[in-house]
C-alpha cells in the first residue's frame, strides 16, 4: 500500500513539474513582457532585467519560477489591471468559484446517486426510463444550454432568481449556475450508479446475503451500494474537469466573479500571465484530485490493496 501511494505521489509531482516547465517555456516565448510597451533605453531594460532576474541563466530562472509558484506568487497582470498582483486578483475569485463548483459536485452526486439507485431498483419501469432520459440529456447537452435556458426562463422571463451574480445575494444568485453546472454530474453519476447497481444486484453474493436473511435497506446499503460505489469514484475526477470547463462558460453567462470568467477575460485580452496562472491552478487541482481518487481507490478496493502487497 505504501509503495502504491509513493508511486502515485511521485507521478503527480513529476506531472506538476512537466506542466510548470511547459508554462515556463510558454511564458518565455510569449510576446508580452513586463516592459515591452514602454519606451525604454538599453540601460533601463538592463536594470529591469536585473530586477526581475531575467539576466540569470535559464535554469536559475526556471528554478526561481518554480519557487515563486510554490509560494503562490504568479507575477503581475499585464493588461487586465496593469501591474497588480495576480495572487491578489485570484484571492477572492477562487473562493467564489470553489463554492459554486463544490455545490454543483455535491448536489450532482447526491441527485445522481438517488436517481441511479431508484432506476436500478425499479428496473424497466417508468422511474428507470425517466432516469435514462435525464442522463442522456445531461450527458449530451453542454452545460451552457442549461445555463442559457435557465437564465432566459427563470431569470429573465419569470424573474424569480437574479439573472446576474449579485454580491448581496450570494446564495440566491448561485442557485442557477449550480443547477446548470451539476446537470452533467447528475447524468454521469446516475448512469454509472444504475449500471453498477444492476450488476451488483445480479451477483451471487447478493443472493447469498439474501439467503442469509438480510433484506430491505440494509441489503441495499451494506451490500449492494458499497460495492457499486467503488467504480463511481473513478468518474469523479474527470467530472471535476468537466465542471472546470463548464465553469468558464457558466461564470461568463451569469457574470460570476470567479476564476473561470477571469480566465476568459484574460484569454480575450491576451493577458498571458493571468491565463497561465489560472491554467496552473486548474492543472494542480486536477492532479491533486486524481491523486486523492487513486489513493482512495487503493484503500477501498481490496484487489488493488492486496495486489500491491505481494
Amino acid at each position, binding site marked *: 500500500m505504501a509503495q502504491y501511494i509513493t508511486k502515485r505521489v511521485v507521478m503527480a509531482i513529476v506531472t506538476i513539474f512537466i506542466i510548470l516547465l511547459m508554462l515556463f517555456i510558454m511564458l518565455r516565448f510569449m510576446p508580452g513582457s513586463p516592459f515591452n510597451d514602454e519606451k525604454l533605453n538599453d540601460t533601463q531594460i538592463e536594470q529591469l532585467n536585473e530586477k526581475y532576474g531575467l539576466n540569470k541563466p535559464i535554469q536559475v530562472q526556471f528554478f526561481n519560477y518554480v519557487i515563486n509558484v510554490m509560494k503562490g506568487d504568479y507575477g503581475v497582470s499585464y493588461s487586465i489591471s496593469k501591474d497588480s498582483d495576480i495572487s491578489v486578483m485570484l484571492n477572492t475569485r477562487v473562493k467564489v468559484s470553489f463554492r459554486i463548483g463544490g455545490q454543483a459536485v455535491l448536489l450532482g452526486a447526491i441527485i445522481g446517486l438517488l436517481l441511479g439507485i431508484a432506476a436500478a431498483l425499479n428496473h424497466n419501469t417508468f422511474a428507470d426510463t425517466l432516469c435514462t432520459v435525464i442522463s442522456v440529456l445531461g450527458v449530451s447537452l453542454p452545460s451552457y444550454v442549461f445555463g442559457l435556458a435557465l437564465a432566459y426562463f427563470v431569470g429573465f422571463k419569470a424573474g424569480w432568481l437574479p439573472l446576474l451574480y449579485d454580491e448581496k445575494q450570494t446564495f440566491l444568485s448561485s442557485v442557477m449556475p449550480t443547477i446548470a453546472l451539476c446537470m452533467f454530474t447528475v447524468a454521469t453519476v446516475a448512469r454509472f450508479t444504475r449500471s453498477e447497481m444492476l450488476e451488483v444486484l445480479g451477483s451471487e453474493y447478493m443472493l447469498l446475503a439474501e439467503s442469509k436473511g438480510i433484506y430491505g435497506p440494509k441489503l441495499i446499503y451494506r451490500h449492494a451500494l458499497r460495492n457499486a460505489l467503488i467504480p463511481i469514484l473513478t468518474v469523479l475526477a474527470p467530472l471535476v474537469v468537466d465542471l472546470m470547463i463548464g465553469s*468558464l462558460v457558466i461564470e461568463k453567462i451569469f457574470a460570476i466573479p470567479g476564476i473561470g470568467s477571469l480566465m476568459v477575460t484574460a484569454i480575450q485580452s491576451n493577458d498571458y500571465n493571468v491565463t497561465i496562472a489560472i491554467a496552473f491552478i486548474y492543472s494542480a487541482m486536477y492532479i491533486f484530485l486524481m491523486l486523492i481518487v487513486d489513493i482512495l481507490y487503493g484503500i477501498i478496493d481490496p484487489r488493488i490493496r492486496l495486489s500491491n502487497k505481494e
Partner: protein
Amino acid sequence: MNKAVTLGGEIASTRKFSVEEYLDSITFEEDDFEFDNSEFISRIDADYISRSHWKDALIRFKKNKGAVFSVICILVIILFAVFGPMMSGYTYDQQDINNQNMAPRIPVIENTGFFDGSEKMLSSTGTKLVNKYTKDKIDIFYWFGSDSLGRDIWTRTWIGTRISLFIALIAVFIDMVLGLSYGLISGYFGGRVDMVMQRIVEVVNSIPTLVVVTLLMIILQPGLSSIILSLIITGWIGMSRIARAEMLKLKEEEFVLASRTLGAKSFRIIFKEIFPNIFGQLITQTMFSIPHAIFTEAFLAFIGLGVPQPMASLGSMISDGYKNFTTHPYMIISPLIVMALLMLCFTMFADGLRDALDPKMKEG
C-alpha cells in the same frame, strides 16, 4: 495395485474402495452403451437462414427507437448542412446594415401567426409586439432571422453545422488512426514498450484538456487548423486506452497463437486477426468522441478562440447571440438547437450502437 480410491460425494467419502473391488462392484447391462438414436439429431432444425454478426446487430439496432430516430435526425441535419446555405439566397458573410436584428419570417407559415417577423419589444412601460418587416415595408424573408450585422441566420446556422460536422469527421480520424494504433501497439508489444507508452499516456492524461487546448490556442492563431491540432493532441487518449485493454484481453487467445504458429508477423496479427474482433467496440467509442469534439469547438468559440469572423460556427454564433439573448432570443435559439440536437443524436446513436454490437452490455 491396491490403491484406495475415494469417491466423491458425501456418502461415498465415508467408505474406501480398492480399484479391484470397485470394478467388481459394477455390472454392465446389455443396453448400457448404445448409440444415441438419431431422433435427437433429427430434431436440430437445419432449415433456417444463417445470420451474420453484423446483420444480427442491425436487427437489434432497428429495435432501438431512440437510436433509429437519431440516425434519421443526423441524416437530416447533414442534408441541411449540405443544401441549406444555397436555399435562402443569402451568403453567410453578406451584411445588410438596413436589416439588422430581423425576427424570423418564413413564407406561408407567416399566415398562421408564427414566424411572421414580429417580436416582443421590452421597454420600461411593458411589452409591445413589433414587426420590423411591415414597419419598414421590406418584403424579404429571413427564415431564422438576421443577426446584429444583418446577416442571414439560416445560412450561417448551416454553414456552422458544416464546421461541426467537419470537426466530427476529424474526431473519427484521430480516434481511428492515432488512438487506435497507439493503443494496439502498446497492448500488443507489452513489456518495456508498454511501460514507456503508458507513462506517456499518464502524464498527458493528467494535464486537463482545457489547459492544453487554451494554451495551444494562445500560441497559435485562433482558427480551424489550431482547433484541429488541439483535438489531435488531446483526443486520442480515450481510444488508445480501450484499444490497449482489448488487445491485452485478446492477444492471449488461441486463434492468435494459431496464427503466430502459422508464421504470421505482428502487423498481420494486429490488423487481420485482432482488429476485426474489436471493431464493434472501437466504432462505439469513436461515436462517443464525436459529441465531445463538437463541444470542444463550441466551447473554444464561446471563450473567443473559435474560427475568426466572418466565418460562422455554431459555437461562435451562440457566443454572439448570447450578448443580446434577452432582447433577440431567436439569434441564439437556432444554432443552440442544432448543436444540442447534433450532440444528443450522436450520443444516442453511440448508445444504440453499443447495445446492438455488444448484447451483453444491454442488461447494464
